[in-house]
Each structure stands twice: as structure tokens, then as C-alpha cells.
């Protein structure tokens, strides 16, 4: 089995409402000088091989219209 991490994030240029809300909360907490906050998600999975991971991302884990994804294999 391999273990993989899939990192999914909103495409550049698309307003990320969640990231904006997080960013908006920062000054009140005393965090200055932080900007361009974007919130995505990580999917961890184990698979027999990496053959179909790309397809899995295209069809289910990400919506390619609005999200980019990266697949990172962390252990063989």
C-alpha cells in the first residue's frame, strides 16, 4: 500500500469566502501583517497503487472548475 496526501485548494483568482473570513478575524486577535489567507483541505488515503489517484481527484476529491489539487505520495 502507498500512503498519499491530496492537497486541494480554491483556484487562484476565485474569491475564497472562507479564507477571507479567517483573514478578517486576524486583526482582532492581534495578528498583523498576514494576508492572502486561503483555506483548502487535505485528504489522506491509502491505496494499492497510485494509478488512479489522478482520476479520483478529477472525478470526486476536487472540482477542477473551481479547485486545484496536488497529489503527494508520502510512503511506499
Amino acid at each position, binding site marked *: 500500500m502507498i500512503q498519499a496526501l491530496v492537497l486541494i485548494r480554491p483556484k487562484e483568482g*476565485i*474569491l475564497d*469566502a*472562507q479564507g*477571507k473570513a479567517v483573514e478578517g478575524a486576524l486583526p482582532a486577535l492581534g495578528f498583523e501583517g498576514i494576508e492572502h489567507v486561503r483555506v483548502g483541505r487535505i485528504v489522506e488515503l491509502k491505496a494499492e497503487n497510485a494509478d488512479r489517484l489522478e482520476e479520483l481527484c478529477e472525478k*470526486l*476529491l476536487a*472540482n477542477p*472548475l*473551481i479547485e486545484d489539487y496536488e497529489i503527494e505520495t508520502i510512503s511506499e
Partner: protein
Amino acid sequence: MKWGVLQFPGSCDERDALNACRIAEASLGEGGGSGGSRLVWHEETDLSGLDGIVVPGGFSYGDYLRAGAIARFSPAMNAVAEFAAGGGPVLGICNGFQVLCESGLLPGALLTNERTRFICRQGDLIVGDADSPFLSELEAGTTISIPFKHQSGRFFAPPELLEEIEANNQVAFRYAPGHNPNGSLNDIAGVTNQAGNVLGLMPHPEHAVEEFSGSTDGLALFRGPALAGANA
């Protein structure tokens, strides 16, 4: 006209949608409102005998991952895709719209509202110039008032796709000036596929079909396909 209203684990507007179908049937003198419209459980694959499909609002499969992303793979949705390919009328409301976009039956995607808040209020829509059986009773440019209630309703399409949607007259509804609640591009509240037989919208016509709710403007969508003679 017999409607099938899909029911996923997590759907919550399917009974109002079925009620709207039955009121529409009755208003058209079809079977006194009991002409065979029914709920369709998400594991069903046989849509034979049904003339139209509603994919209703709610939180199908908990909306885990992304709204509509998992419902798209349900057995019933495979059957709906075939039904739509054959020209059958399919109406997606709210979460149903998200499911139809995720499944590729409609163009675009629905993102979290610009201000991240859940919206629940009555609002105005302008009827677009899409050629669809669902709009046969609605004139382009007129206004209808129906409830908005959603958190992920911001319509988005990349520039080329958006241009294509506009050029093909696939916009079914736009939010009236000042009524865009979520930051949708071009004020788009609902779109059709290229053929016009599949229509999705974020606002809720099924909640505006009886006088007590303050508006009956939603009924036209449920009457439309029968009036257009679009039986599958």
C-alpha cells in the same frame, strides 16, 4: 404528468417539491393532484413511467466534501443522466442544482456565498431568455418572487464558459437588481443545459406554490413542462 422527486439521505425539501408537483398536476386537471407523482429513493434506478424529475434541496449525503459531490454518484443520478440525455425534463433546486452541476448535466459550479452567511429570505428573480419547457409559462424579463435559502449559492464559471452560457441563452433566472444575495457572477440564479430540458436554480420555487406562503410564483416551473408538452 408524473413527477419523480429524488430523495437522498440528507434531502429536506423533497416533500415540498412533491407537493408542488401535485398542486401543478391538479391545476392542470391531471388526476386531481394524485396522478402518480412520487418520491424516488436514491438507490432506485428505474424511472420508467415518470415524465419529469426534480432533484430537490437539502444536504445530500451531508454535503460532505463539497455540496452535491457525492450525490452525483448515486444510482438514481445515473438514471437521471440517462433520462436527461433522452430529453426528459429535470429540475434541480438548491442542493439539486449543485448536484446537477457536479454531475456535469449543467454548466458551472456553486461556491460558498460571498459573505459566508446562510441566507433565508424572499427575493426577486428576473426570468431569463433561456428556451426551456420549465419556462413555458414565464415571459423573459418578468419578475417572480420566491424564497432564497442557501449558504453555497454563488454561481461561478470560468470566463470562457460564462461567455458560452450567455451566448447560448442558457440563463434561466437572474437575481433582480439589488437582490443578488451571494455574489453570483452576472447575477445568475439559474441556468439550463444547452438543450433546455435540464434547469437548475438556487432559489426555491417549491416553497411558493400556495397562497399562505405569500407567493405562488413558483408554481409556473412545475406547470411548465406539461404545458410545453415535453413529456419524456
